């Protein structure tokens, strides 16, 4: 038996063959032509952490991931693996398991050969015996639940299976850190969900420091220990999923995490009114123009005559367990959409054209416009 976790039964909870590594990124800068992809990014990733890099396209998240992997050389800044400067290490010495967005499986090799590749290309002195490679590949196939598919070619696999082969191939080199670029981007919704849970389980099992890139906020919030929100090459906010969701630090984070209603308002005596209620701003502004961000589902719809902002119902639409209501509200150019849970015994009957009152439960107010 080898020392690696990969040789053990998958429910073994004992310490693994992977050594979790602490990764530090200091003042990373990189530009492509005139376009700055990374504009001074600093970040520390704890050993064994599962970190999500979240942001819209062009925010620099993939560039950051590739820089950590060593696939791109930053113009400036340092990357430390367990205190050791990684810029000086070759790709081989970095031992990074990288899972590409389109998997990048070797199309002319079988699944088995794909997974074995990283072991076979080692220098002779470090290369395991042929039989050891075979054992290790078999264990990895079992780990990613593809036991019988070793002799298939990538073109004969489904998207989810290819994804898992790519993972097994990355794990074969016993990486110090696992990096995944949009790992679920090319899969359909159901497979995405399944793989997400499976990846979480795999992470718990291996304890590897893992970083993945995504533009899907739901994915990041559900899967990660911590989320890094990026925008135009800088980090907007770092935090635990719940903290980021409950305490967004900037208007951008507010807008990026879920559906919001933007309310132009003014802070007077440290309070800003928005949709029938007043809220204290984020930060310490006591007066001046501001924008309040209200999540679509953080608004109560009350009968006309109650306290709140007067609103005329335009239309209703159901989706799944929710009801989307479109209101015409004074002071808003576009219709305001509110989401409420859909219940058969709704206390309020909704009729298009009728008048209601809207009252926000929670709003994030940022001074300035």
């Amino acid at each position, binding site marked *: 038996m080898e020392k690696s976790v990969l040789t053990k039964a998958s429910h073994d909870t004992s310490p693994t063959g992977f050594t979790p590594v602490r990764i530090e990124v200091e003042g990373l800068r990189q530009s492509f032509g005139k376009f700055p992809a990374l504009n001074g990014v600093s970040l520390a990733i704890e050993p064994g952490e599962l970190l999500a890099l979240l942001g819209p396209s062009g925010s620099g998240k993939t560039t950051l991931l590739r820089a950590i992997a060593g*696939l791109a050389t930053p113009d400036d800044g340092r990357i430390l693996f367990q205190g050791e400067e990684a810029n000086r290490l070759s790709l081989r010495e970095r031992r990074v398991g990288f899972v*590409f967005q389109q998997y*990048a499986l070797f199309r002319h090799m079988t699944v088995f050969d794909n997974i074995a590749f990283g072991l076979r290309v080692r220098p002779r002195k470090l290369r395991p015996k042929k039989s050891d490679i075979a054992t290790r590949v078999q264990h990895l196939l079992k780990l990613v639940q593809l036991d019988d598919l070793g002799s298939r070619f990538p073109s004969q696999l489904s998207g989810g299976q290819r994804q898992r082969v790519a993972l097994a191939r990355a794990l074969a080199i016993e990486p110090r850190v696992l990096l995944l670029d949009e790992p679920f981007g090319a899969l359909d919704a159901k497979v995405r969900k399944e793989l997400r849970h499976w990846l979480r389980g795999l992470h718990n099992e291996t304890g590897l420091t893992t970083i993945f890139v995504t533009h899907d906020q739901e994915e990041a919030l559900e899967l990660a220990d911590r989320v890094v929100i990026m925008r135009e090459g800088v980090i907007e906010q770092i935090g635990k999923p719940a903290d980021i969701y409950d305490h967004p630090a900037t208007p951008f984070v507010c807008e990026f995490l879920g559906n919001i209603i933007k309310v132009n308002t003014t802070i007077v005596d440290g309070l800003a009114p928005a949709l029938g209620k007043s809220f204290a701003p984020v930060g310490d502004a006591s007066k001046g123009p501001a924008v309040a961000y209200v999540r679509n589902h953080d608004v109560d719809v009350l009968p006309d005559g109650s306290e709140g902002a007067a609103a005329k119902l335009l239309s209703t639409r159901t989706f799944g367990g929710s009801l989307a209501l479109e209101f015409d509200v004074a002071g808003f150019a576009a219709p305001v959409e509110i989401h409420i849970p859909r219940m058969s015994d709704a206390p309020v009957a909704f009729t298009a054209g009728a008048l209601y009152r809207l009252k926000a439960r929670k709003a994030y107010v940022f001074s300035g416009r």
Partner: protein
Amino acid sequence: MSVSDNPVSETSFVRRALVTFVYGWLVLFLILPLVVVFVEALRQGIEPFFAALIEPDALTAIKLTLLVSAIAVPANLIFGLAASWAIAKFQFRGRNMLITLIDLPFSVSPVISGLVFVLLYGANGLFGQFLITHKLQIIFAVPGIVLATIFVTFPFVARQLIPLMQAQGNDEEEAALSLGATGFRTFLSVTLPNIKWALFYGVLLCNARAMGEFGAVSVVSGHIRGYTNTMPLHVEILYNEYNFVAAFAVASLLALLALVTLVLKSLLEWRDARNGKISAH
């Protein structure tokens, strides 16, 4: 593979008419001329045929043709690999111009390609004086023929590889490198297998053209019998001397070379496809 009765495909009449037309066209313009070459070559029996081939001037022409393609094909294989690698994998200034330039020999008449070399390296050419003082002969000698052949055949390998390598992108190479493979190992076990058929096909086409090139070589060779005559030039000379049997005999050899390369290509492709299937199941 049989054509299935598919509601989306054409009616059987259109299908048959189209297939018949294509076959008819091929017979008329491809098969028939090829057959004629061999029929004419063997018109007076097997002995004159072989006599024409082992005649000293013919032998020299055959040797020269083999020598020229033995230099031109590897040269263009290396150039083609380098050019398509650079174009497909890197972004750099003048990249699009390079793609257009590679196509130049396709759009320029071979005669002009030959003339260009005469203007450069001929006695009255740009480098003519330099070459004469150093007693180097390029035009009307083997080096000129090699240069002209390389010029005419250099798009073949690159043209096959560029679209393929662009479509395949960089991902697999990056994956190999991140798994710890060296650059050379990555080239050998990832890049090369992915492009091997396109590369092989490019080399075959390049070789066929290198052996068969007439126009450019004709300008720079000087037609010195037994010295600077390649097979196509030799065929022309024999034909102009009304020595039809000998002309067609040498021509049939060229045609045979083309057929052999074609069969070789089909065989290798067939074998690879079968191996792929066996290990896949």
